[in-house]
């Protein structure tokens, strides 16, 4: 298991909002508009699912949360710090926000699994036994300890996905953003990941197409479609509204049903 006890003293976080995204618009260089004014707030410690059809802009939004993409309209604030072009600010934001990319090949680049997992914490200044412990714990958590000395690009897709998750867990970020973490994982690994995530004292934003998984992990869910947030509600309520889901190419697997509360959550 990942223990967060050994974390460095928490920065003086005066802001109760972990993430605050306001009016973010973004077009890719080829002119394709991906985000058309996204507003979204995530209070500290909440676990939120980000749902939406293919091409909705979920990944584009995720890449804004630590300043990898920027340059459109709007602001992104992370625990009070606003993403800008300043190197020091960006470095601090990237320390706080850990992103697991949708494609594990975007995440892994060092010659061995262990080195890759150690890379983030080493950049945070950890050394020696502490660093080793971080690596061991993270690899343990995703069940990849026995592969620690292998080359990441020689792993199976699902194994790479697990290592990708470990690289971010090892950094003990305050805010954990996962883009489709469960895809290509075997069912047991999926459940194990859910248990780990549930046990972490972090703010969590998880992009997923697996609605039952979202329900299992997150109390609140958002739907992003065509670059805008179109719904924001407790996950159970949201998943109970089949009309809404169907409008956005979402649906529960056959035979799966949820009891919702009041359908009063749609965004105008």
């Amino acid at each position, binding site marked *: 298991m990942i223990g967060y006890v050994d974390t460095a003293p928490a920065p003086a976080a005066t802001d109760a909002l972990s993430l605050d995204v306001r009016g973010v618009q973004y077009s890719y260089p080829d002119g394709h508009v991906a985000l058309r004014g996204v507003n979204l707030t995530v209070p500290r410690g909440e676990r939120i699912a980000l749902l939406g059809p293919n091409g909705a802009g979920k990944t584009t939004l995720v890449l804004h949360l*630590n300043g*990898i993409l920027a340059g459109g309209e709007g602001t992104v604030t992370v625990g009070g710090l606003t993403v800008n072009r300043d190197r020091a600010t960006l470095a601090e934001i*990237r*320390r706080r926000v*850990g992103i697991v990319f949708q494609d594990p090949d975007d995440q892994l*680049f060092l010659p061995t699994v262990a080195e890759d997992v150690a890379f983030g914490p080493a950049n945070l200044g950890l050394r020696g036994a502490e660093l080793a412990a971080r690596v061991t714990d993270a690899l343990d958590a995703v069940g990849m300890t026995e592969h620690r000395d292998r080359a990441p690009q020689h792993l199976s897709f699902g194994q790479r996905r697990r290592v990708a998750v470990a690289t971010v867990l090892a950094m003990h970020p305050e805010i954990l953003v996962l883009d489709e973490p469960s895809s290509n994982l075997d069912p047991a690994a999926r459940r194990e990941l859910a248990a780990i995530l549930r046990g972490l004292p972090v703010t969590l934003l998880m992009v997923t197409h697996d609605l039952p998984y979202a329900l299992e992990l997150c109390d609140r869910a958002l739907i992003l479609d065509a670059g805008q947030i179109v719904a924001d509600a407790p996950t159970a309520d949201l998943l109970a509204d089949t009309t809404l889901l169907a409008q956005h190419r979402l649906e529960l697997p056959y035979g799966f049903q949820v009891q919702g509360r009041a359908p009063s959550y749609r965004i105008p």
Partner: protein
Amino acid sequence: MGAGHAHVLYRDRTSPVHRLPPEVKIAAMVAFTIAVVATPREAFWAFGGYAVLVVLVAAVARVGLRWLATRSLIELPFVLFAFALPFLGSGERITWLGLELSVDGLYGGWNILAKGTLGVLASLLLAGTTTMRDLLLGLDRLHCPQILTQIATFMLRYLDVLIGEARRMRVARISRGDDPRFLWQLRGFAAGLGALFLRAFERGERVYLAMVSRGYQGRMPEAWRDAGAATARHWLVAATVPLAATGIAAAALVLG
């Protein structure tokens, strides 16, 4: 991997030159360059004539002269060499503004400057009006050995793979708290390059195998190769420029 569609030098517009099949453009460009190189260096007027031809083609191709001028800076090193020759050259010398210059060297410098520049301009006109993929298609239709076009095709594709993998590695690093100004600051230039090479290879290998799985056997599908191949008319149209150049070169040789 969007390889080979366009390259930095391609000017995306429509013009009669853009529409010409690539093989005739390549042939015309090569023939033109050979005519230029064969011209005696003393025939100054002939080089003026070539320059006029280049300007005419650029106008028809709707390629700006300023673009041509800036892009031709690539030959700057040759220009430096050309300017060194009047000092290095042997034989008869003249004095100009207090500098003692070799006559042969002056001619040599001019020769390199004129022929080099015209050659670069001709390449730029080809590059500006032809996508990389068409260029390879043209080489293929000119019966360039298949193994060469195959290597060239992969070269273009893997340029994209290299760039793509370099981008991925950069994103992976900055989002985990590293702050590199260059990709290779991790363990020195070469180590980063080695890692990038291996990574690009393994991605490229998988892409190649996926192509093979879809029936690739070393050449692009025939249906694509044959579409828009040159007709006799195309050859005639494109031949005007090298023919004019050959005329100039012949005249220059005869007139001495």
